[in-house]
């Protein structure tokens, strides 16, 4: 899960950088792209990406804790925490989009 989400994010990143780079051509270019991205499918994909990002990060933090601390019994707590956090961020994003 950690690797798959990482791979998805890795594929997304260049697109993200490209879109932002549109601003080099002036505000109108970026605005054009933003209007294009106003469709539901896009928003769904964005929501998915935000969730993936949260998941990937929580998995990573868990790994760092396992490797660098002596805590035990982490696994279940952190998986729960990861899912919770990912859901939270996803919802915050969705809510922000709705309003």
């Amino acid at each position, binding site marked *: 899960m950690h690797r798959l989400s*990482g791979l998805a994010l890795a594929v997304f*990143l*260049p697109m993200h950088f490209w879109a932002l780079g549109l601003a*080099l051509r002036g505000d*109108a270019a970026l605005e054009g792209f933003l209007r294009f991205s106003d469709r539901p499918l896009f928003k769904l994909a964005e929501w998915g990406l935000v969730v993936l990002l949260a998941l990937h*990060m929580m998995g990573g933090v868990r790994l*760092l804790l396992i490797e660098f601390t002596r805590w035990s019994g982490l696994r279940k707590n952190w998986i729960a925490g990861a899912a919770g956090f990912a859901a939270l961020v996803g919802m915050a994003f969705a809510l922000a989009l709705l*309003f």
Partner: protein
Amino acid sequence: MSVNASERAGAASTTASSAGAGGDAGAASNEASIAQAKRWYWQRISAMVLAICVLIHLAVIVHAVRGGLSAEEILGRTRGNWGFAMFYGVFVIACAVHVPVGIANIAEEWFGFEPRNALGLARAFALVLLVMGLRAVVAVVV
């Protein structure tokens, strides 16, 4: 005592000669291990930087997306904002370190890439991320 000393000397020379005989292979695999350890180390360090950057970035996203996105709004916030530029510059560099290590690992372990080719792929991707990322930062700040 002289017996012990000579035993130790014997053991030492045996080790030395076996290291010498397996020298080339030993050195190569040693190098590979060091390379792998460095990759691991850089991935963890960049991960720690990214964890912080991502938290801040997520907060920025959630705030920015309220009421819809518009170029005017975004660029109004980012143009001339050098603090923003520094933060996102660091973010881009950390990504350019972290993502390629993961890509190289996946290439080797899931797709059977040769270490040399995985490294090449990783470096190419790092360059792409670095150039496109820094260009994007310049695009919204300058």
